[in-house]
């Protein structure tokens, strides 16, 4: 019983995500989970995942948030539009310039936050106004479109099927390979720990965990295969999530992020350059904002002055729903991805049901509060028990 409780407590948000998915699947008569809609869901929420991962780095450093995200998306989108559409620049060069500009914006904000020690809230609030203004200046208030086919293909295409037929066999094969790789990694890890004589979790737990994850991957790849196959954007997301997961879990700078957020004074006395860590978090955030901007202009096939409005709120919401601590030092990439999917399912589900968009906003606000309150309360109860 205790073990079951423990598993429940550790995965509250995952369970909440399942419940809400089933809930909307029932209410929409299954429309939520049809292959076309799942593909759509990924395309719609890709940018949220990217931004939320970046936002997590900022929140980890001590509950600081970056409010300028949406405006940076607009600015970089405008830049991409100008370079690719108006100037007809080589798309790869244009994308590199856009990402570079993202890094520069991050360096500017990071400098004020980390070295001058102006609160992040203020610097990024200023950034929110500043970058939106620059975006409007670049666009002259107009929308740039359409983007060339070769640019759109990078983000909007699917992994082609070599076999033909109704079902995209390649997608299923890829899904299967991912499962195999995952299983092999699990087994190697287990053997390694065993050899060194460390206690491992019970075999049954590992088997169940691995099975659940593999089934999830297979169901997803099968569903996608029934539509057009694995979207290119999913691969990009997968790469981003893997890189940042690895970075936060397995690298020294990643560890420093948690240390600074957990106790900045102790981190400093442990020889960590806390300024550098803070600086990095904001440079990285702006870099990922630029990446999200490139994804967004491809999805909408336009660079609009109002692009990116309220994106920062989606990213922040995903982090908190995903279990990041508002005081810093706690949170995982996996959790944040769950948070982002949660928000995505909520949006998408309500849209399919045809709920008025004003009502949608109100519901989202309440759900965000409820999700975090649920998390906080369940942890509190755990402590007193």
């Amino acid at each position, binding site marked *: 019983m205790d073990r079951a409780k423990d598993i429940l407590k550790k995965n509250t948000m995952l369970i909440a995500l399942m419940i809400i998915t089933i809930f909307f699947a029932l209410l929409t008569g299954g429309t939520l989970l049809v292959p076309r809609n799942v593909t759509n869901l990924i395309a719609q929420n890709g940018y949220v995942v990217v931004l939320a991962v970046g936002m997590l780095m900022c929140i980890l450093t001590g509950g600081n948030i970056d409010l300028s995200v949406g405006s940076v998306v607009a600015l970089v989108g405008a830049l991409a539009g100008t370079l690719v559409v108006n100037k007809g620049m080589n798309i790869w060069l244009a994308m590199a310039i856009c990402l570079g500009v993202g890094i520069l914006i991050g360096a500017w904000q990071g400098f004020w936050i980390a070295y001058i020690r102006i609160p992040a809230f203020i610097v990024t609030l200023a950034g929110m106004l500043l970058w939106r203004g620059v975006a409007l200046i670049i666009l002259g208030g107009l929308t740039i479109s359409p983007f060339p086919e070769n640019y759109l293909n990078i983000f909007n295409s699917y992994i082609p099927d070599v076999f033909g037929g109704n079902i995209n066999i390649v997608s299923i094969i890829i899904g299967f390979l991912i499962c195999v790789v995952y299983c092999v990694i699990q087994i190697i890890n287990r053997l390694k720990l065993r050899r060194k004589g460390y206690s491992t979790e019970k075999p049954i737990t590992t088997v169940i965990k691995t099975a659940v994850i593999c089934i999830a991957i297979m169901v997803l790849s099968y569903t996608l295969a029934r539509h057009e196959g694995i979207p290119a954007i999913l691969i990009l997301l997968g790469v981003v999530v893997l890189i940042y997961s690895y970075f936060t879990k*397995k690298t020294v700078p990643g560890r420093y992020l*948690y*240390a600074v957020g957990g*106790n900045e*004074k102790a981190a*400093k*006395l442990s*020889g*960590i350059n806390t300024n550098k860590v803070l600086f990095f978090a904001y440079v990285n955030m702006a870099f990922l904002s630029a990446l999200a901007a490139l994804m967004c202009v491809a999805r909408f096939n336009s660079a609009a002055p109002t692009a990116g409005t309220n994106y920062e709120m989606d990213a922040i919401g995903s982090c908190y729903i995903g279990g990041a601590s508002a005081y810093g030092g706690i949170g995982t990439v996996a959790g944040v991805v769950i948070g982002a999917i949660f928000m995505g399912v909520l949006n998408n589900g309500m849209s399919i049901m045809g709920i008025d968009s004003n009502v949608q906003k109100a519901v989202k606000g309440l759900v965000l509060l409820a999700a975090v309150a649920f998390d906080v309360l369940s942890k509190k109860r755990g402590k007193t028990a």
Partner: protein
Amino acid sequence: MPGYLLEMTNITKRFPGVIALDHVNLQVEEGEIHALVGENGAGKSTLMNILSGVYGYGSYEGKIIYQGEECKFSEIKDSERKGIVIIHQELALVPYMTIGENMFLGNEQGGKYRVDWEETYRKADQLLNTVGLRESSRTLIKDIGIGKQQLVEIAKALAKNVKLLILDEPTASLNEAEARKLLDLLLQLKEEGVTSIIISHKLNEISYVADKITILRDGATIETLDKNKDDISEERIISGMVGRKMVDRFPKREDTTIGEVNLEVKNWTVYHPLYAGRKVVDNVSLHVRKGEVVGIAGLMGAGRTELALSIFGKSYGLNISGSIFINGEEVKLNNSRQAIERKLAYISEDRKGNGLILSNPIRENITLAKMDKVSSHSVIDGNAEVIAASEFVEKLQTKCTSIEQPVGNLSGGNQQKVLVSKWMFADPDIMILDEPTRGIDVGAKYEIYCIINQLVSEGKSILMISSELPELIGMCDRIYIMNEGRIVGEVSKEEASQERIMGQILKTSKGV
């Protein structure tokens, strides 16, 4: 006996794992100035916190009888209503409010929905006049010095119709003239019928103002001396304060050979980071040899922690001057990273605030200060980290469910062991231990002492800061005595006694 304004009888207060007060008695007569003395941790502040309701009724045992009736204060407001006002060592004034606003904070003049500012400032000016502070009550608190702020606190107490005024180390941060003024004010208030309890380390000040002196030691009342009946000389008070029996609480150190000078600090001066021109460490020179445990004794605020932090990569203070030699070679340590690379370690007195990351597991805390030992090219070798952490947990016998347990869930003693592990993991040659046994129980203390002995037997140097004199005397080969930022004496293990160290500190305190 009639005439007592306040009688506290058999007060016992327990904190988890410690008895802070053990059947303490205190009797204060109406219209007297009563001094409360004792070493750090003797229980003075705890006693006053009980009296003022900070620790509410029910959290302690014993009786408080004030003005002939038993009191059951559950919060500060209850005691203030009866005219008991406490002024803490850390002043509780809001810097960006005016003197007047501060004085009537929580006691606003006028109606419930309308503050009468004219009345506020009129009354405030009147009270400032009483305490002899020549400032307009519309001046902001941040614009006046600490001595004047102390007077504002007293004026604030008077605004609450104080009958019993409690001052916790009121002169600790004042200069001589300011302290003198404050003490004279207390004498003046006494004439007007205000009773005071004053906590102080400056014995000359106490003999100047106090009518009676109660001595606390290790949470128990030792004696009460009456100015008119007893000898209240400083020697008499000191022997009361420190006269405890020495028990064998310290492990024997196997003969370790004391070698070359490992760390030498010369003419070290550090200024306060906020108050320009205030020297926190004043021309300090010291050295530590290999295999030697050197102590630094001193009262709170003597500048010991600041000295240690400033040596450890300039982690405290401004305009630091002086030189540091490690193994005879002069080094410049500009940040904690450089200090760690030079094989220095600083184990903070404040393990929760400055030492550990409570939300992180034991494993991550232990390796944090020297990540390159368990990583290559910035990629952490998870297995190596687990091995290292397990090794230290075992070596120091840290009690925990696993190395993945968040440090915040451990007991104080085990947290301290994790903190020591963390710095042992960094492979230092010189370890500065700041209050290494604060707030942990006797058993854990003994274990920490054993670890210290183990370290010096490996040829490491230990610089130990402690407020517990028996601990310093029991553990150190040599003890520096620090007071008000300066080294005011040095005693060897053989010459060290509590009387001698305490006497040296008190003699050099700038009193009246």
